[in-house]
């Protein structure tokens, strides 16, 4: 057991979950206190002691399944079904010839298990399905997605779902509303079956190739390390949850009152307080220094090449706008338009995004990025409203399609504003290659940051928050 757990901890660390020495020891101590034969107990124990961030749960669940899939769930005491008694993977190839496989019978069994919510029967059905349909080949270094696809293709889950729904409705007259609720119930049961099958496939992969190898195949980058330029819709959704805390942190940082007693002595209040201490002014009172109220302007490149990243930055903008009143946002492709109103508090992000795409006038000529023209229009239209308290944050790859950079315009912005910060989603090694004009612009910026991943964005915000980031603090 000890060996498996150390292997598991290694795997977590490899996957990027930071498990400290102390936490590993805690986990070991905790495991001693529980019944390790109980899989749910073991999982929750390891999770509580080692995973301290919700974003790491997916990585944990995957690794746990691989390392501890042989420990049964407590309800799972019934013996394996007849079909899967020995190591099933070796049988799967010659079985179809020796004994004709009845797909309809299997479907019927699954249907019954789903209708009765019988977990054990469902698991048996899933085992048979994997036996018969996945066609697993020993030794192939795959993660199991392919086998899952092969199994599900034959099972026709959509049909099963429809049948189950009809069976549950039965003869009763049901309103559309109730049907919808029922459908969601059915969908969650089907999802259970899917997970059951996936787990079964992983279990066999582990039996075939060993824990470490399978874990390595399944390893995916943590959400904070996903490259924003290539994030999938699912990734973005997950990031959404992480953005909230981040923007709140930034907003809190920007709006923070200085708690040092830098204000002047408040003589009146000090004397009044001294009455409580017999006229000795033991508790001097100070006037509160006027809090610094910064303004932030966000300038986002929303051109095609930046599609994923700009969706992310707009998401960020949107989250900022909900608890930050002095924020203005602008979008540009080859010209610039203000989009602040689209992201007011209480606005749904999806519809705001749609409005940026349809209503904002960000394309002037051909829809290819033109930073020079955008900046020039920006200064022409909004420049007079820039004040020495305004911080301008520009997000973009600085790829100008070989048009003139007109970076002196940016110098003008820098002169008028408090600071200009540039966040570039490209790796810094790519800057100034091809049509990237980064160094032309960087020269006029107060600071330039590579922000390719959520982690880097966090670092950027972190630097603003930490006392060591003095130079940056002055920026905002």
């Amino acid at each position, binding site marked *: 057991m000890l060996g498996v757990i150390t292997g598991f901890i290694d795997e977590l660390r490899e996957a990027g979950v930071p498990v*400290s020495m102390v936490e590993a020891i805690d986990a070991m101590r905790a495991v001693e206190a*529980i019944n390790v034969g109980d899989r*749910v107990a073991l999982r*929750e124990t390891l999770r*509580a002691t080692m995973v301290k961030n919700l974003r790491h749960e997916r990585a944990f669940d995957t690794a746990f399944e691989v390392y501890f899939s042989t420990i049964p769930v407590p309800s799972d005491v019934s013996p394996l079904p007849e079909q899967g008694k020995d190591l099933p993977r070796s049988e799967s190839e010659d079985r179809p010839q020796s004994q004709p496989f009845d797909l309809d019978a299997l479907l019927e069994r699954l249907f019954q298990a789903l209708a009765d919510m019988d977990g054990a029967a469902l698991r048996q059905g899933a085992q048979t399905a994997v036996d018969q349909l996945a066609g697993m080949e020993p030794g192939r270094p795959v993660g199991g997605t392919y086998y899952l696809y092969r199994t599900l293709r034959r099972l026709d889950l959509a049909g099963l779902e429809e049948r189950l729904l009809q069976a549950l409705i039965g003869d009763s007259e049901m*309103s559309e509303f109730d049907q919808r609720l029922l459908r969601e119930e059915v969908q969650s049961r089907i999802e259970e079956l899917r997970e059951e099958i996936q787990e079964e496939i992983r279990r066999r992969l582990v039996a075939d190739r060993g824990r470490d190898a399978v874990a390595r195949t399944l390893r995916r980058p943590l959400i904070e390390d996903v490259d924003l330029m290539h994030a999938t819709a699912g990734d973005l959704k997950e990031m959404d949850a992480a953005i909230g*805390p981040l923007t709140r942190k930034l907003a809190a940082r920007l709006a923070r009152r200085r708690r040092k007693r830098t204000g002047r002595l408040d003589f009146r209040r000090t004397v009044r307080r001294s009455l409580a201490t017999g006229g000795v002014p033991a508790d001097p009172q100070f006037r509160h220094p006027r809090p610094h109220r910064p303004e932030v302007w966000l300038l986002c490149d929303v051109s095609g090449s930046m599609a994923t990243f700009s969706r992310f930055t707009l998401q960020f903008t949107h989250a900022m706008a909900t608890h930050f009143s002095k924020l203005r946002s602008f979008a540009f492709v080859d010209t610039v338009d203000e989009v602040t109103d689209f992201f007011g508090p209480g606005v749904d992000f999806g519809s705001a995004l749609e409005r940026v795409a349809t209503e904002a006038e960000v394309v002037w000529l051909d829809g290819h990025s033109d930073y020079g023209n955008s900046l020039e229009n920006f200064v022409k239209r909004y420049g007079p409203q820039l004040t020495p308290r305004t911080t301008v944050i520009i997000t973009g790859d600085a790829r100008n399609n070989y048009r003139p950079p007109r970076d002196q315009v940016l110098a003008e912005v820098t002169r008028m504003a408090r600071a200009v910060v540039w966040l570039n989603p490209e790796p810094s090694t790519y800057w100034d290659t091809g049509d990237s004009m980064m160094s032309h612009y960087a020269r006029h910026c107060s600071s330039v940051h590579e922000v390719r991943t959520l982690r880097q964005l966090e670092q950027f915000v972190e630097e603003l928050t930490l006392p060591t980031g003095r130079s940056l603090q002055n920026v905002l």
Partner: protein
Amino acid sequence: MDFDSPQAVSEALVSVDYLPNDRIAQVVFLAARLDKPILVEGPAGVGKTELAKALSRVTGRELIRLQCYEGLDEAKALYEWNYKKQLLRIQADTDHEWEEIEQDIFSEEFLLTRPLLAAIRSADPVVLLIDEVDRVEVETEALLLEILSDFQVSIPELGTIEASTQPLVVLTSNNTRELSEALKRRCLFLHIDYPDPAREQQILNARVPGLSEHLAAQVANVARSIRNLDLKKAPSVSETIDWARTLLALSIEEVDGAVLGDTLHVLLKYQSDIEKAAKELASTPGD
């Protein structure tokens, strides 16, 4: 305090109308066994604070609560010297030597205990709830570290005060910011999510007396349905409980689209969310 098994935790909590899932029971069991604080995280209104209250009821221990907020400091969380009283003491007594007075004014008599110190010094074991710990600044978090790992408080003038009894510590966080690694390392982490319909139905039955099984099931299913939508703020468990109470007060026995449309504002608090949910689920009596 000790429980025999996670099942025992579960039964004890159910007896005070708190319905835990496997994860909650397991983590509470471990916390009691290993004497470690629990850091509870999750969306608003899923019963994080309620867990601490339930634990206090189960164990019969007093609940000491420290509500965190921005600007919370040592003087309000740990202890403070009652300097006014100290000052009076000095003024009232001019006969004694200074050393003597100094000894005297830095004694426990002049110490104002705040929640954390109170929890440590209590003669009977307590449940210490540190609520919304994510609201304090990163620097202030450090105040908690000594208590969480060693259950002791160091006061320069008095020395270290160790806990005479082991408090059960529960910290809650709404995850508005990332907590420091040092804090997380010292705690068991427990994420509580919205309950699944079966558990939510049980919660409703426990919390709303007089609610029929059928209505509770419907309410739980509708709640899941609404949480599946992409909303600004999904309905919390406390809001579904409110909704169930509303339905009961209106003597409604069957939820349909029209009823939902009329009472949606109990579940959802943003106008844009209400509109969205209404479009998806509710129907006006006309159609």
